[in-house]
């Protein structure tokens, strides 16, 4: 190996090592709080104060039993119901809206498109006080309906679907299906939906994340404990286990971990989804 080549080779090795070290260091910073939380969940309340170390203890199962005795499983189920329904509704409504804006010529086409662009910029959490009052009038307090239906009006999703369908669904295909006598709605189901699968997947991920993690809306809509979603249950752990601090930590751990597992399994799609979701927007 010539001297010059050797030099660049060494430089490359140095850079590789230093960047890898940097990445490992940052990863540790990202993980440590979660690790500490998981670690604390393995201690009993007494030992939490006195004998706490960085290594896990053996009390996890007991803590899990304590937490599971409460409403935890129930609120997991509630969260799943709300998030899955919200995801389906939102994706379906957005895709339909996007399809009609992207592929039909009608009078209000341009107006609707500008409408969603403007509404995207309106911060939604500001109408929340009036939203709650309206739900009270409509009798939807303490039901899942508002938590699900509000995601149907996701202008971000609608905008994104419009752009995706415009770029990825050839109009000729729709025309030819129409000539073959396909109903407009069946065109949507049979032709458009298969073509926009990636967008559907990405949007589903984003909506699921938003819905699963949302806290402000559920806490003012839901009153009875049997209807609480995961974030509310986690937020009220303090009053649920007033003395049992270990159970609180375990509850928090249990609330956060399911999404982590899903995230890590589908990480490729998730990362792609978050990226595309932001770049396209």
């Amino acid at each position, binding site marked *: 190996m010539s001297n010059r080549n050797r030099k660049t080779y060494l430089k490359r090795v140095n850079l590789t090592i230093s960047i890898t070290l940097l990445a490992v260091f940052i990863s540790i910073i990202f993980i440590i709080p979660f690790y500490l939380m998981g670690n604390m969940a393995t201690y009993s309340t007494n030992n939490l104060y006195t004998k706490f170390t960085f290594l896990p203890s053996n009390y996890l199962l007991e803590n899990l039993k304590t937490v599971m005795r409460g409403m935890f499983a129930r609120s997991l189920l509630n969260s799943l119901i709300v998030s899955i329904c919200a995801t389906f509704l939102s994706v379906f409504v957005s895709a339909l809206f996007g399809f009609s804006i992207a592929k039909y010529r009608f009078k209000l086409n341009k107006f609707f498109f500008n409408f969603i662009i403007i509404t995207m910029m309106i911060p939604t959490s500001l109408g929340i006080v009036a939203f709650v009052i309206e739900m009270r009038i409509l009798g939807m307090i303490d039901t899942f309906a508002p938590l699900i239906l*509000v995601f149907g009006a996701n202008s971000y999703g609608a905008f994104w679907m419009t752009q995706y369908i415009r770029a990825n669904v050839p109009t000729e295909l729709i025309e030819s299906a129409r000539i073959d006598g396909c109903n407009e709605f069946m065109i949507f189901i049979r032709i458009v939906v298969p073509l926009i699968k990636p967008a559907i997947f990405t949007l589903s991920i984003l909506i699921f994340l938003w819905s699963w993690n949302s806290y402000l809306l559920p806490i003012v809509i839901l009153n009875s404990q049997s209807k609480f979603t995961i974030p509310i249950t986690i937020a009220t752990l303090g009053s649920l286990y007033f003395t049992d601090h270990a159970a609180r930590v375990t509850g928090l751990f249990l609330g956060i971990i399911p999404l982590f597992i899903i995230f890590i399994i589908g990480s490729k799609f998730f990362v792609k989804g978050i990226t595309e979701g932001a770049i396209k927007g």
Partner: protein
Amino acid sequence: MFALRAYGRANKKTTCHDKKLYGIKRVELREYITSEVQLLRERKRKNFWPYIFTSPFLILYFVFLLVPTLFTIYLSFNKWNGIDPITFIGLKNYIFIFTRDPYFFKSILNIILIMLMYIPAVMVLGVVIAAAITSRYLKWGHAFRVISCLPYITMSVGIGLIFALILDPKMGVLNKVLLYLGLINEEIQWLKEPYARYVIVVMMIWRLLGYMILLYSASMVNIPVELYDAASIDGANGIGKFRHITIPLVMPTTRFLLITSIIAGFQLVEEPLLLLNGWTSGSQGGGFANAVKSCLTPVWYIFGTAFGGMSQYGTATAMSFILFIVILSFTMIGFRIFKQKGIGSNE
């Protein structure tokens, strides 16, 4: 229709004399007319479809977002506690907020101060780290991105509580470690007055950094390698390339991240609420009575005003409206600074 008329005229001229031919053409003409009529009818019917397709979105938007927004504006000119009849009081809510309300403008100032600390930090760190990991020197770039995104996908409620857990003066790990290392002599009250604000800044940096890295690295991947090669030939070093190629080319991402961060930052509430209130008292509904006042955020305060016992819906909605104007003007300033078409540009 014009085509049809033209066809008819042409037909008459050329075929009137030839009876046989005339007959054939007539049949064709009839077919043509029926098909044309059918097409027209179909087109009319098709004009219905886009309205049917857009209606679910529009109905849901109307009921769940537009009506609340308009109701917010209406209520802000009224006095209402949820039980008594709504009474119109004109601008009194606004006058109250501007002259006598103790915390609303303080909360806006708080959030601006907090944002001034965490948004620049997280964006600079994000772009630098993204540049480091998108270079070809890192093997497990994907794993790193997944790990760095974990705080971002965690529910904000959880983020607040985890930090409350670690910084808890008695139980928290941080004080224990610092005591063990002998860096401090007594437990520090991290969640009280001088520190709490900086705790929120650190927490937000930790939460958002992965997202920034992810988006920046996604936009850096699209920068053509030839640019860097050309710069290398011209003798540019790594820092020079980063400054003169990477930074300008990720400008659209910077713009997007900055504007969305500001919009989201103004609405920050769950993390500080749970950090300062959740673990100790487990209170819900957003009471702010025993909150650290330097960390009170606008949405938190609005929530407390509306649902924290007093039910001052009029005042709360007026605050929402003011906050909306504030956010809108900051967004507009953001767009103006970058002097480009906005998030929703159609290109």
